[in-house]
């Protein structure tokens, strides 16, 4: 059975990406939501593993 066939029996919600993204962009605009409404994680709870991973991403040139 292929991976595509298995999704036919997916038990949860399905999100059709293109219409989802268009609706989300429209709603953001209607509500005037900016990135100020979505603060990034403070980092206070980061594990040592997470800190090391983020450093490795930065060292690899990750520009996020």
């Amino acid at each position, binding site marked *: 059975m*292929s*991976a*595509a066939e*298995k*999704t036919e029996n*997916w*038990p*949860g*919600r*399905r*999100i*059709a*990406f*293109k219409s*989802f*993204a*268009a609706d*989300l*962009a429209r*709603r*953001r605009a209607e*509500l005037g*939501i900016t*990135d100020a*409404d*979505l*603060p*990034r*994680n*403070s980092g*206070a*709870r980061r594990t*040592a*593993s*997470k800190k*090391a*991973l*983020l*450093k*490795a*991403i*930065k060292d*690899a*040139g*990750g*520009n*996020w």
Partner: protein
Amino acid sequence: MPPYRPEFTAALEIFAQICDAMATRGFTRPVLVGGAAVEFYSMGFITTGDFDLCFPAQDALEEEFQRYGFIRPSGPGRATRGWVHPDLGLGFEIVGDVPLDGTVTRDHIALVEDFENGPPFAIISVEDLIADRMGQYASGTAREMLMQAQTLLRLHPDADMDYLERRVRHETGGDFGADDVRS
């Protein structure tokens, strides 16, 4: 073209391909959780390049990471459970077998289809994501999570409020409910 960051879209494409590879091998799809899921549901600039996943067969998934060119950093001060792609500046970390310590059933995991003409991928539901943010907020160590939760709910007014109420109560030890998320 949806207004997601190009690097975020590119990362999701790789994640979707890895999901598909795992499904082809007979596994369930890994589930995207955490900040990358917030970015997906908000179009906000949340992630810092690390994508958190849940998947029960860690060894098999790590084989797939290696096939896609990811490496695990090692050495003093570099030990991590995560995997980094040295050319893409992107990392994945398996943070658990299942989302939120098993409190999320499979029928509450969402499947994203028609993504950039690639294969589908699995993601935590927006309700469970909000509940997770509220749980972190309730712990007292992540006050910014309340605003994330509130913004997510504003962006998704069609959320299942009964389910959200149950999940927020559970994740916050009963201290908060869905009404506390409404801003």
